[in-house]
């Protein structure tokens, strides 16, 4: 059997592997960062793109991964592996707890409730400045940023570690969305009431999807702390809840590779715009207006629609 979706995504992985040897240092580092942030975007996409939960509070889960790894490393002398695991657990548990409460609401109320939880988390980080170092943030010294003997502060190692995390996330997501549970997630997005009358409890399905989304966000946050050596309150602010939504919308909500593409495009858009002007957010705004007008389903969503049946086979 020819699995076209697996082929197209392995093709993307091959391109990213080749990029490891071909990219100049600046872009090499940039793409490593994009790969880690893409994992965060993939997590957001599971909740928003596939299950239809528009959250404005995902920075809480990203930050839980970030601080969940950074604080054990710097305060309690943990090593890289356990710290990474702590970040994952912190974000996953937090996402499940937020879900238990926030999923009693839907639509605009859900957006507001998740936003409030994230703001509460942000303010908590500032309040506990003695341990979190608040706005200034925690800088993780180079010797601590090691995992299984690998020095993650080294550019080449970091790129490969980021790629490994990305590939795990990408293939797991591809498997998820093509599994029976993935079909139920999409059913919730498309018509919750109809899905309920097929015997699915919307609450438990959405809670599971949000928890998984939290796991992805936490993995990205914890990896970010280890690879880039910094955990600060600015990464828990509201803009870090909005960013994954923009990445996902730009690349294509409800496509497996869309979050990466959107994150990459947005990064370089801001990067090039900052050469010309300091008003980079204006450029981002114009890009988003253009997106809504001309390709509301994002880059890969538009491509998939154009290709019809073939599109659905190559780009789930």
């Amino acid at each position, binding site marked *: 059997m020819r699995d076209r979706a697996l082929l197209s995504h392995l093709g993307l992985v091959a391109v990213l592997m080749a990029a490891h040897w071909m990219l100049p240092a600046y872009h090499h580092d940039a793409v490593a960062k994009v790969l880690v942030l893409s994992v965060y975007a993939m997590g957001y996409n599971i909740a928003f793109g596939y299950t239809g939960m528009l959250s404005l509070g995902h920075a809480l889960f990203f930050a839980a991964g970030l601080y969940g790894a950074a604080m054990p490393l710097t305060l309690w002398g943990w090593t890289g592996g356990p710290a990474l695991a702590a970040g994952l657990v912190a974000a996953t548990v937090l996402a499940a707890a937020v879900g238990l409460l926030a999923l009693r609401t839907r639509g605009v109320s859900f957006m507001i409730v998740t936003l409030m939880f994230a703001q509460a988390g942000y303010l908590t980080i500032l309040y506990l400045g003695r341990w979190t170092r608040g706005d200034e943030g925690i800088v993780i010294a180079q010797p601590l940023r090691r995992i299984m003997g690998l020095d993650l502060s080294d550019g080449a190692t970091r790129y490969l570690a980021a790629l490994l995390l990305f590939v795990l996330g990408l293939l797991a997501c591809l498997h998820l969305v093509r599994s029976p549970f993935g*079909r139920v997630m999409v059913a919730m997005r498309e018509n919750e009431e109809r899905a309920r009358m097929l015997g699915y409890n919307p609450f438990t399905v959405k809670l599971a999807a949000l928890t998984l989304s939290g796991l992805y966000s936490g993995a990205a946050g914890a990896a970010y702390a280890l690879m880039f050596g910094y955990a600060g309150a600015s990464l828990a602010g509201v803009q870090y809840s909005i960013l994954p939504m923009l990445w996902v919308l730009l690349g294509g909500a409800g496509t497996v590779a869309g979050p990466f593409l959107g994150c990459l495009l947005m990064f370089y858009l801001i990067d090039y715009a900052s050469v010309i002007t300091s008003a980079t957010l204006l450029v981002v705004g114009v890009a988003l207006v253009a997106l809504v007008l001309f390709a509301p389903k994002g880059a890969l969503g538009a491509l998939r629609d154009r290709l019809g049946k073939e599109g659905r086979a190559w780009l789930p």
Partner: protein
Amino acid sequence: MAAVTLLEARGLTRHFGGLKAVDGVDLDLARGEIHALIGPNGAGKTTFVSLLSGRTPAQSGTVRFEGRDITRLPAHARVRQGIAYTFQITQVFANLTTFDNVALAVQGRGVSKRLVRETSAALERVGLADCADEVAGTLSYGHQRLLEIAMGLALNPRLLILDEPTQGLAIGEIENFKRLIEGLVPERTVLLIEHNMDVVMDLAHRITVLNFGQVLSTGTPEEIRANAAVQAAYLGGQA
């Protein structure tokens, strides 16, 4: 008597403000029958079956299914107990393929290994096998109605509630639909809300007439046809 009764509703009531949409309705469904629910527009038919399926909570009264009290059970749990509901206004997943629509119903029963085979069989049964890869929203209206019924059947229900299933179907499609429904009993029980009197008189073993949220009469098609009160309230109004 208990062994032949599949579902038993007693005193079901649902008011919306001052409107007594369903007002103390009793209904018994015998195992393996086709039971039609008729009545003028606004008689409370859809609200009543919503109380049976759990989409709307009852304000008072009880529903027993297979002898168990299910009055407090949420809708998705009632589906798992074997009560399937097909929507009056077609509500297929328009952006998913026909196959995925039916697969959602099949996999919910815990089928995993034989998912593809059982889904294909369910599509075959209503004659939609050729459309498996089509996006459901692009199907003709008649095919979407059939898909809706295929999803209900794929749940393998003991009670299938059909809310105006022939609405908008062509005459040839209605004949096929009648044969499909006749083939379901006596293994399954069918509760049918229907405005098309030919379909009702041909299919139903028993008929319950609702009017202003209350049961006007229950009986065989012959009895209902002969009932003066029903004629006045409903059949007479149409003639």
